[in-house]
């Protein structure tokens, strides 16, 4: 059963407030309880059909604590992250709304933060965003009015001080758990932990990292982060994802900004009889190694176009240790029992 704190009377409504929590969403509760959290990511559809959202998340319902709705990731155009989040909330899921600085200036971003929170969003991930050159509209104007650190400061100010950046008052501040991304696998390696500290100082409460395929590099980052005490100041979720094939791995490595896949991983994929299964196996092994790494509070699964494999990977990795994240049918059962009246 899901933890009682994670279940409210109405699945699509914010949970009853808990002391010591900034948000009324499930993800913050799971992390603060010290449970190893699992989040997953969906790429929003190229469609105005709301049913496509449900189709994408249904296969892993009950296996993840929150679902990231990406914001034009890879600088490709898709349904907006706020809209995807609102549709997920309608169904009862808890989304992490991603906000990238590439497409909006501070006026639009702050408006979106208020709108998202009003629609029930409890988690926001602040990103710089990939450059427009990486996507399907390279001729677009990149905005980058804020950077991710400034965005964190902005949202924290809105939430804790109840003010816009301009200083104007916000009557109903957004109650959001704020996160950021970090890439331990990009240069300069020794600056990455400092950058993490900076993001925490700016307001980051959780971190989701870029895809991890290189345990020694991750270890190097985490050791430094733990030495600086950063794992005590924020929750670090390591990014992972299954590779579909050796060819796909090489393509990702060459074309997706910031993804580092060591040669050994590619060689192992090439040598496998069934590359897809091998990709999942590597992913499960990585998750287990990350689970054992001090300072890691959870994993963030990015299984692009392989959403159907998320449940299997999480189950095989055993990281939930028998725990069941929120699921629609379990809530329905609880309600059904309650409706029968007290014994």
């Amino acid at each position, binding site marked *: 059963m899901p933890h009682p704190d994670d279940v409210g009377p109405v699945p699509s409504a914010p949970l009853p407030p808990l002391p010591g929590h900034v948000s009324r969403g499930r993800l913050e509760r799971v992390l603060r309880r010290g449970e190893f959290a699992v989040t997953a990511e969906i790429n929003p559809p190229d469609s105005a059909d709301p049913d496509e959202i449900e189709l994408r998340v249904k296969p892993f319902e009950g296996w993840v604590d929150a679902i990231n709705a990406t914001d034009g990731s890879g600088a490709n155009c898709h349904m907006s992250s706020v809209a995807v989040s609102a549709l997920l909330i309608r169904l009862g899921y808890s989304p992490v709304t991603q906000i990238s*600085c*590439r497409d909006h200036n*501070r006026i639009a971003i702050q408006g979106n933060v208020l709108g998202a929170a009003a629609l029930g969003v409890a988690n926001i991930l602040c990103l*710089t*965003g*990939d*450059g427009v*050159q*990486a996507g399907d509209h*390279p*001729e677009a104007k*990149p905005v*980058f*009015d*804020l*950077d*991710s*650190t*400034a965005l964190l*400061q*902005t949202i924290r100010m809105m939430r804790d001080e109840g003010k816009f*950046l301009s200083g104007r008052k916000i009557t109903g501040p957004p109650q959001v758990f704020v996160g950021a*991304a*970090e*890439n331990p696998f*990009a*240069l*300069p390696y*020794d*600056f990455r932990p*400092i*950058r993490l*500290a*900076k*993001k925490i*100082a*700016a307001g980051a409460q959780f971190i989701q990292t*870029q895809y991890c395929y290189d345990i020694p590099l991750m270890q190097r980052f985490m050791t430094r982060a733990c030495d600086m005490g950063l794992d005590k100041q924020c929750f670090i979720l390591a990014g992972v994802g299954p590779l579909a094939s050796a060819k796909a791995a090489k*393509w990702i*490595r*060459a*074309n997706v*900004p*910031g993804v*580092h896949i060591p040669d050994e991983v590619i060689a192992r994929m090439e040598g496998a009889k069934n590359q897809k299964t091998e990709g999942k196996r590597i992913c499960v092994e990585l998750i287990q190694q990350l689970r054992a790494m001090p300072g890691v509070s959870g994993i963030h699964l990015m299984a692009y176009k392989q959403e159907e494999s998320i449940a299997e990977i999480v189950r095989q990795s055993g990281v939930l240790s028998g725990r069941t994240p929120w699921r629609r049918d379990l809530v329905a059962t609880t309600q059904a029992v309650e409706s029968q009246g007290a014994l």
Partner: protein
Amino acid sequence: MRPQDAFAHTGVARAPLPPGSLRLWSVSHAAGLASFYRKFERFLGKLDPIFRWIGYDQMEKPMATLERAVKAKLFDCRMCGQCVLSSTGLSCPMNCPKGLRNGPCGGVRANGNCEVHPAMPCVWVQAFKGAELMGSVAKMGEALPPIDQRKSGKSTWLQAAKAHAAS
């Protein structure tokens, strides 16, 4: 496909490293240059009475022109009007195509070059090098507030003169 081919269609208005740019040289001489720069700013502070006599508003245009000429050569300065070179190892962050002022994005290439301009060294990889030379890595950990776009084009030397005179 080579990584850079994925970015072949980037439309860039300005060469990421203008010909004759001293930017990379400045970073590799960050320690000496930074201490010279600090002295220079103190000197500007001494000129405050003159600036006040002429009027700071009157000084704005000629000073900005002079500052642009010097700093463009040395740092490829973009005249953001709120200089942060002292906390970025003398590598001007406004040359980052994403305008990042708080550190590198996650897209830095394995060779230390920029995600957007494959031929340009990432300004933040450079900044980290410069900061190591200047012994100011700790300063890079301080989060900078959002940029004020209104200050673009304004002279920071005059601001420094005012600040030094006041202190």
